[in-house]
C-alpha cells in the first residue's frame, strides 16, 4: 500500500500547508462551505453595523402598534410592547456572538496552554490535570450553568464563565493528545538534540501543529454556544430585558405564538441562519485542513 499512499501524497503535495491561494481554491469547491461563509459574514456584518441598519430604536417601547404584522414600516412586525422586531433581531445578534467568541476564545487559549502542559510536562502533572478535566466534564453542564447563574445572577459574564469552564477540558484534552503524539516524534527529538529549550519547542514546533484541529473544533462549537445562549435567554436566564437578544425575541414570540406566529418565526430565523452558517463553515474547514478528523467530530 506504500506506493498507493506515496502517489496520493505526491498529488496532494502540490500545495504547501500555508498557501492561502490553495485554501481559497479548495474552499470555493465546497458549496456548503461557501454558503456557510456567506451566512457567517452576513451575521457578523449585521451585528457590527447594527446601529446603521436598524430602522427603529430596539429598546424604546411603543414605537408603533403592539404585535403588528410585518409592514413596510415594521419589516418583521412589532412585539407585545410595540418594539420593532427587525431592529431587535439585528441588535440582538451582538450578544450571542459576543458570548460565543469570548467564551470560546478563553476556552481555546486556556485549553491550549493546559493541553500543552499536560502533554509535554512531567507524567504526574499530566495525571493531575487529566483528573481535573475529567471531574469538570463529568459534571452535568446544565446543572452547573443553573448553579452558576443562581450564584452570580443572570448576566453575559456568567454565561461566558459557564461555557468557558465547561469547554476548556474538552479543548485541553484534544490539545494534550495531539501534543503527546508529537512529543515522541523524531523532529522534536531533533530539535532537542540541537539544544532547543522547551518553550521554544512548544511555541515553534508543537503549537502550530496542535492549533489546527482546535480551531476546527472551535468553529464547530460556535453554533452550539449560540444555541445554548439563546436557550438560556429563552428560559429567562440570559441578559435582562429590555436588552435585545435572539433568545429573548424567541421567548416573546413563544408567548404570543397563537395569535402572532411571525414574532416567533422572526426570532428563530437568525438563530437557524447563524447556526447553519457556522456549522457549514466549520465542516468545510475540517474537510480542508484535517480530513483525518473524520465526520464524527
Amino acid at each position: 500500500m506504500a506506493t498507493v499512499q506515496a502517489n496520493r501524497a505526491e498529488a496532494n503535495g502540490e500545495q504547501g500547508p500555508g498557501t492561502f491561494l490553495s485554501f481559497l481554491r479548495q474552499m470555493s469547491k465546497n458549496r456548503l462551505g461557501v454558503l456557510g461563509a456567506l451566512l457567517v459574514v452576513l451575521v457578523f456584518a449585521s451585528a457590527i453595523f447594527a446601529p446603521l441598519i436598524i430602522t427603529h430604536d430596539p429598546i424604546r417601547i411603543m414605537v408603533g402598534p403592539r404585535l403588528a404584522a410585518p409592514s413596510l414600516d415594521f419589516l418583521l412586525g412589532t412585539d407585545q410592547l410595540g418594539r420593532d422586531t427587525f431592529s431587535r433581531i439585528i441588535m440582538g445578534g451582538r450578544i450571542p456572538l459576543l458570548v460565543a467568541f469570548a467564551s470560546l476564545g478563553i476556552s481555546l487559549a486556556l485549553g491550549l496552554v493546559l493541553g500543552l502542559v499536560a502533554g509535554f510536562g512531567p507524567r504526574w502533572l499530566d495525571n493531575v490535570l487529566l483528573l481535573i478535566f475529567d471531574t469538570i466534564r463529568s459534571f452535568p453542564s446544565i446543572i452547573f450553568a443553573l448553579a452558576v447563574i443562581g450564584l452570580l445572577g443572570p448576566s453575559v459574564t456568567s454565561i461566558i464563565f459557564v461555557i468557558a469552564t465547561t469547554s476548556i477540558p474538552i479543548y485541553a484534552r484534544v490539545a494534550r493528545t495531539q501534543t503527546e503524539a508529537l512529543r515522541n516524534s523524531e523532529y522534536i527529538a531533533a530539535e532537542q538534540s540541537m539544544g532547543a529549550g522547551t518553550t521554544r519547542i512548544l511555541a515553534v514546533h508543537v503549537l502550530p501543529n496542535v492549533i489546527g484541529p482546535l480551531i476546527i473544533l472551535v468553529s464547530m462549537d460556535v453554533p452550539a454556544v449560540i444555541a445554548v445562549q439563546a436557550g438560556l435567554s429563552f428560559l429567562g436566564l440570559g441578559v435582562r430585558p429590555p436588552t435585545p437578544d435572539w433568545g429573548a425575541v424567541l421567548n416573546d414570540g413563544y408567548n404570543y405564538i397563537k395569535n402572532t406566529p411571525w414574532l416567533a418565526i422572526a426570532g428563530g430565523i437568525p438563530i437557524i441562519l447563524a447556526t447553519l452558517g457556522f456549522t457549514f463553515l466549520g465542516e468545510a474547514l475540517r474537510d480542508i485542513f484535517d480530513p483525518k478528523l473524520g465526520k464524527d467530530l
Partner: protein
Amino acid sequence: MSALLRVQDLCVRFRTMGPLKALATGTKHPFVDAVCGVSFEIRKGETLGLVGESGSGKSTVARAIMGLRPPVRGSIRFEGQELTGLTVAERKPYLRRMTMTFQDPIGSLSPRLTVRSLLSEPFRIHGLSNRDAGAETERLLRMVGLPTDFARRYPHQLSGGQARRVGVARALALNPDLIIADEPTAGLDVSVQGEVLNLFARLQDELGIAILIITHNLNVVRHITDRMAIMYLGRFVEIGPTEQIFDQPRHPYTQALLSANTEPDPDAVLNRIEIKGEVPSLMRRPSGCEFHTRCRYVQKICSSVFPETSVSPNDAKHSFKCHFPLEPETARSLQQRPPVPIGSRF
C-alpha cells in the same frame, strides 16, 4: 591522538511499567537495560559504525550521547568534559560541536517550517541570529548538493533523499566536530542510498568531521567506516577495524550477521550461517553468554559464564566477547566469492 568522544561503561535503563503497576504485580525490577556496559571512543575525523538488529540498543546509545535519554551509569566525555549529569543549558555549548541526524528523513524535519527556517534553526537556538540566514541557507544547501531554490520548500514537498540531505545540512550548520547519523539510509531507495553515503564520505574528507553511523545494514558500514562495533542485547560483542571484521569475524554472532547479507546474485553459493530463533527479550536476558541460545558453536560453559572481553592477538584494536572465538581459518572459509560481473551488453 586523543579521543574526541569517549564513552565508558554506558548503561541506559527503561521502565517497563509504572511504579503502581509494579507494586500491584509484585515486579521487583520493572526495568530493562537497553544499553549495558558499552565503552568506545571516537577520534577526530574517524568514522565508527554501530551495527545491530532492532532492539540491540544502538539508537539508544546515540540518544544517550545527545542527552535525550539520561544513562543510569557510565560516563560520556567530549574532549575530556563529562556530559552526563549536565543541565540542558550546560550541555548546550557541546550540542554545537556534536549533532545528530535521525532515522526518518522527512519525519525528523519540523513539518510547518520551510527548508530555510529549518536550516536557520541551529543559529537561532544558539543565539546566532545575527548571521545572514539567507546566505547561510545557500551555503548549506550547496554543501549537500541541493539547488538553492529548495529553501522555500516544506518537508512534505521533498523526496526521501532530498529530505535526508536537508537533515545533514542542518547537522552541519554550526560546523560540528562529530555527527551522529542514526540509520542514514533508512527509508531511502537503493539508488539514493549511495548518494547519501557518498555525501558523508565527502564531508568527512573535506571537513574532517568524525562520524558515528548507526545502522542495521552491513553494506552501509563497509564502505564508509574505519571501525565497527556489533551490538547484541545492548552490549558490544565485537569491535575492531571494519575490514578486519568483514574478513575475519571472531564472534559467531558477527559471522551470522555478515552471512545474513542476501546477495543480488542467484548463483551466489552462500554457505550461509543461518542463526536459529529470534533475538531474546530484554526482559529475559539469557544467562552466561547472551548469544548462547542461538549460537551454533555453543558449549557447556557458554550458558553459565559471562565471557570476558578478549583481544585479538594480531590486532590490539580488535576485541570480542566469546569463550570460543572463531579461528581466522573458520572465519575466512565464509568469505564469499566475488560477484559475477554484470553482463556487458552496452
